[in-house]
């Protein structure tokens, strides 16, 4: 029995589609990233898994309980944590009272420990809480009964970077304890940090299902080389190098006198060229090629996942996730704000 199994799950709101024919399996002990831009159907899926709404067609099981069976799902929820991006609380009561209330409903075996890491001001009314404090309270509520499965819908949206980091390392520690996570997000950095596998939804359909490692491997490396001398634009047309750009005083091929120009300006820093590209080939040919230049600086990093995901989000190439078709300038295209 897998913690979560979606089997042709479909939810429509009248004529508006929520999700269409989603099938996937979340394995025990993994952090499954459920990715997609806003409006892709992530929240719809999660609300159906929690039993807040029933599927139009198809179904899903959560810890073996069919989501269409309210009684079975209710019992299963004893072992499920739920962490939404904007949790709804009664504004007039204190965090402590809410903790007691929800503890009575789901059991409380570790709120004290959790409160050492996530520490909202418990004695103040929740209505006075900042968004970060509300989210920390929600985290404590989601984990206080030590559930084996936690379903999270953009859980870090309200947290500042420091708290996000704290939360993500908490998730990693929980996974090490054998817990399973269903983690919806559109923030690729956090997905990269904690997820084992990802399912990518686009327009309510599953566009891809991938190992994060495979994805990273396939996305190649971002290479940036600073070279002392000007080079020609096609100098790095290697196998496996994509989107090569050459900046910084490089002459047009065959342009006479270009070499004097930077020298005349008197700046040695501008005399060379900076080449950047995405590289999916083996290291050896690249390193041999680099030996032919006077390399001032070299960085080789993992390519931003944004570039990989954008291929799934982009209509035209969604069906052909080929290596490193990275198109650059993608960082702001992933749905941006919450």
């Amino acid at each position, binding site marked *: 029995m897998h913690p979560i199994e979606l089997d042709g799950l479909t939810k429509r709101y009248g004529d508006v589609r929520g999700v269409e024919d989603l099938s996937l399996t979340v394995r025990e002990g993994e952090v499954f990233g459920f990715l997609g831009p806003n409006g892709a159907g992530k929240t719809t899926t999660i609300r159906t898994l929690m039993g807040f709404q029933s599927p139009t067609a198809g179904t899903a099981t959560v810890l073996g309980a069919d989501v269409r069976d309210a009684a079975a799902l*209710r019992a299963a929820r004893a072992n499920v944590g739920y962490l939404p991006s*904007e949790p709804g609380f*009664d504004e007039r009561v204190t965090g402590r009272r809410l903790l007691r209330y*929800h503890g009575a409903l789901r059991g409380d075996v570790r709120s004290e420990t959790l409160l050492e890491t996530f520490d909202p001001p418990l004695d103040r009314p929740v209505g006075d809480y900042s968004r970060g404090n509300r989210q920390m309270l929600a985290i404590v509520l989601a984990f206080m*009964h030590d559930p084996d499965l936690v379903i999270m819908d953009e859980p870090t949206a309200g947290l500042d970077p420091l708290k996000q980091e704290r939360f993500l390392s908490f998730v990693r520690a929980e996974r090490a304890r054998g817990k399973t996570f269903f983690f919806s997000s559109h923030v690729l950095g956090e997905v990269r940090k904690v997820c084992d596998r990802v399912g990518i939804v686009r327009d309510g359909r599953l566009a891809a299902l991938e190992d994060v490692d495979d994805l990273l491997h396939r996305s190649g490396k971002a290479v940036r080389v600073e070279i002392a001398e000007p080079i020609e634009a096609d100098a790095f047309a290697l196998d496996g190098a994509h989107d090569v750009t050459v900046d910084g005083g490089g002459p047009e091929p065959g342009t006479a006198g270009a070499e004097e120009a930077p020298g005349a300006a008197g700046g040695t820093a501008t005399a060379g060229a900076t080449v950047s590209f995405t590289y999916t080939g083996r290291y050896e040919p690249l390193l041999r090629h680099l030996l032919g230049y006077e390399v001032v600086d070299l960085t080789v990093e993992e390519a931003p996942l944004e570039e990989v995901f954008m291929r799934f989000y982009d209509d035209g190439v969604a069906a052909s996730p080929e290596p490193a078709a990275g198109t650059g300038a993608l960082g702001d295209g992933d749905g941006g704000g919450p």
Partner: protein
Amino acid sequence: MDADGAARTHGGPSAAAATWAVFRFEAERRLRASVLLAVGLSAFGLLFVWIVPDIVAGGNIEEVLASLPPAIVALLGFDTAASVEGLLAGEFYTFGWVVGLAGYVGYSGATAVSAPLGDDRLETLLAAPVARGSVLAGTFLALLVPVAVVNAVVPVVLYAGSRALGAPLSAGGLAAVHALSVPFLLTWGAVGVLSGVVVRRGRTAGRVVLALVFGAWLVESVTSISTYAWVGAVSPSRQFDAAAVLVDGRLDVAGAATLAVVTVAVLLAAQAVFARRDL
């Protein structure tokens, strides 16, 4: 960890334990308003007990009433104005209970359901291993707080006040009126819960109930003196007649039982809708 393991094998709290937890939480938050209501209605009632004997002793109220159209007299509940009890039933209990408190309880029941539906509080709650039925039951039962507090405080204050003023009201009569008002008020609470489930939209659900309470009272009062009295039979206020108790000493236990049955039926309907709906 053992306790947790036990909770898990049982799949969360029992329905009774879950209902109790919801009730406690909701009831706590109703306490303050309930006490304020009890104080306000007690003061309003004392005013009646204090000035009404003078009006009745003045004697000319009968003449005034005779000059008014019968429908107005029925609407204002003046048909038994010749006594302190008559005026108290006709005015204080009509406006304080049949319209006022019924409206408050109905509105509270409606918004207690519709507000959490609107702002994701219900999701936070239902993420726990609790059934929707338990949440609805606990929410409804919390309406007992204003109903119980007001009906416990006001008759005692009125009796003590009337004694102090030298014209004691019937203790049994007061107790009976307030006891019989409980199923009446709970009926409106149930209608409120149903409205919250069906209408859903925050205060709109509450306003629907306020309109129903006022409309039901109006229809029942006006039709009671016409040949269309049967129309008013659908109004809960037909089953709760303070004047009959205080003036004639007649206890409509069958009416109270009818209201209790209606309350349960309305709650079951609300439950059926709530169990199936998408949040």
